[in-house]
């Protein structure tokens, strides 16, 4: 753990101690340092401490995957990962997929007009990016398996499949 400092918040009336620490994490290629409780989920570190609001809060208990990010290239639900657990890791959020919409998945998502409300789509794209790293040419069954944790409340699943296939083909 690359913790670079600790701060104990001590409550004189109860004697309770909450440990705060400063963590260095690498987000979208940039080193960031944040002061947080060790058990603060990565989601809230990203959203509230770093202002990276592309990762969405949908449930906080791992039931919707709107908060998915890549941790060392692997998809994780950021609401289920504590900051202390990722201090050594490299994290990619939707903002790090590309800011110029040049990533094949982003292009395919726009071309196939996938989003409806759009709230889940960051998580879906992250999951698709994780999948394509493992399987550059996934089948429908591969897609269904890799994305089955992800709720799209608007029902864009069919277009998600189409867009992933298009991105995989490189002809988005």
């Amino acid at each position, binding site marked *: 753990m690359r913790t670079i400092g600790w701060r104990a918040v001590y409550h004189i009336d109860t004697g309770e101690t909450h440990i705060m620490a400063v963590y260095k994490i690498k987000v979208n290629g940039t080193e960031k340092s944040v002061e947080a409780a060790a058990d603060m*989920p990565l989601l809230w570190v990203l959203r509230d401490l770093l202002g990276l609001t592309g990762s969405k809060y949908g449930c906080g208990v791992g039931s919707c995957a709107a908060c998915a990010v890549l941790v060392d290239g692997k998809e994780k639900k950021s609401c289920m990962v504590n900051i202390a657990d990722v201090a050594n890791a490299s994290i990619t959020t939707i903002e790090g997929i590309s800011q110029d919409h040049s990533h094949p998945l982003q292009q395919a998502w726009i071309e196939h007009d996938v989003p409806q409300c*759009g709230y889940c789509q960051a998580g879906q794209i992250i999951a698709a990016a994780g999948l394509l790293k493992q399987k550059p040419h996934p089948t429908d069954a591969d897609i269904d398996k890799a994305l089955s944790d992800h709720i799209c409340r608007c029902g864009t*699943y069919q277009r998600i499949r189409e867009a992933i296939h298009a991105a995989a083909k490189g002809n988005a």
Partner: protein
Amino acid sequence: MKTMNNLTRRSFLKVVGGVTAGFALGCFPSTATSAGTETAAKAATDPFTPNAFISILPNGQITVTITRTDMGQGVRTSFAMLVAEELDADWSKIGVRQAGASSVGENGQGTGGSSSTTSMHNDLRKMGAGARSMLVAAAAKTWGVDAATCHTDTGRVIHSSGKSLTYGELAETAKGMPVPSGDIKLKARADFKIIGKRTSRIDNKAVVDGSAIYGMDVKVPGLLRAVISRRPNYGATLLTVDDAAAHKVPGVVDVVKISSGVAVVATNTWSAMQGRDALKVTWSPGPNAMLDTPKLRASLKAAVGEHKPTPAGAKVVEAAYDLPYLAHATLEPMNATAWVKDGECTIWAPTQSPDSARGEAARLLNMPEDKVTVHLTLVGGGFGRRSMNDFVHEAVEISNQLKKPVQVVWSRDDDLRNDHYRPMSHHAFRGAVDSVGKPVAWSHQALNAPGRGKAGKFGEANIPYNIPNSGMTEGGVSSPIPFGYWRSVEHSQIHVVNECFIDEMAHAAGKDPFKFRHDLIDDDRLKKVLEVAAEKSGWGAPLPPGHGRGIACFEGYGSYAAHVIELSVIAGKIKLLRAVCVIDCGLAINPSGVEAQMQGACSDGLATALHAEITVDKGQVVQTSYFDYEWIRIDEMPKQEVYIIESNAEPGGMGETGYPSVMPAVANAVFSATGKRVRKFPIRMNELV
């Protein structure tokens, strides 16, 4: 809705004033996005603003002001398309800006009932056409020619000699042209370049790079987050609060009582959530502490009254169906940001009714409405939930106590347990068919909790079928579970079960369910969607054992839908195989959007057919996340085929129309596969009849 004539430059300037107040604060990120780049609100030169909905900058950027909430139905795109078409604009230059509450002087900005397009499309087109005629007049003046010798194409005015000027180049001169009045000529459909073309949603770029701003993403300096400890059951009242432990959670800055509970306010959302967990709150349970779903279900069944009499000698068909409470479960939970200070209140909210939010805040704060500004963010799913502004109310209450900017965040369990629910209902049917299989009676008693309509009073049966002696009565029982508008509202109940029962009638008559329906329908458009659904699905073609097809149709909101669902039931498990979705919504402004609405409504129909159910125990909603309020996921989603009927009719509504015929098509397919009827939703194999 005010028309072109009185929505002039003056009212537009008022809009710009309201909208740019946020920019002036330097804290509200623009929700303006465009097909090209972020629309400038920064340009040095004033734009040409022919009316409240359009502004054109000298650099050619065009901004369309959107006065409805986009919760995923694509109205920010389709409204911009309507304006751009008549303006004859270059689509790549079009951006949108979301209007705040009442800022265009439009009466009632609520979004719901599939009414946005049906109510606004002509006015939006007129706005575009009017602006176009002013640009043509500006070009004619510049060149000293007759306007009749000029035409437009893709953002340029072109003279018969071949010379041309862009709209941007004409913006300054156009300011001096008179705003057209009287009848404004609109384009013939044959001349459409934008309407009717599949168009990618205008917010897609912002969505896929993470920059789209939903309610929870609003950034205000010094923003505090609040999470609320809420009643443990309906009707409970607050007794005591011990907030000592909550105050000790790092980041917690305050604990305040509000009307809906006890709010823990912190510098970040996680601390607020931890602080709420650390609160010790006691409640008096009140009268509903023993309320549960079985009791409500029993009381609904007990409320069934007399049916309309059936003719003597006819074969009687009877069935009763049960539907559960449904939550909206929008993926973005309820949230709102408010900042009350110096006699003013600023709100940023993902709401379907910004006007009501403003009025509600003004009443709560005892402030004139013009001291309350409501900014509308993007909305992470609505489905009717955000017609209620309870979450806005909470943010205002808390900020009013702290005089600081506060964002109220509902956790997922807050959201599922404090919704305004699609009511649970019981539907008792009695119909009859004569000796040749012709239906001769139809009686439907729809009983809701909470009740709706006047019990025992038969009205129109609300069916598209020619059946004599038909009627429906609505009633129900009281329930503390609050009523809410849910996709397709009452049709999510009445038409769902109607389409199940007509299938049972067809079976009793010994008729094919497609032909039976078709023979009873007068409306050609409804007949047509049924025909296309049957044709595309291969209706009647043999299926392997354990497989089934079900059909259903719906007419409403000015549109027509039909569905055929194909599934298998093997080893007691339903597998969805294919969904054929047919829609006639009149003119499809954005076919990609129409198709998306059909896909989404189909997803909702499948989810509520197979999974979704809100239950009540000990006076409280049981479900707390998507683990127990299950929605359909990608691995269950069958292949969806959407067929859009070419139509010259006026545009109809799309948000709701695709939903009501999906669930019954699933239920009827289960019957086709198993010979057993679905009488209770969500479908459970051990409950088939």
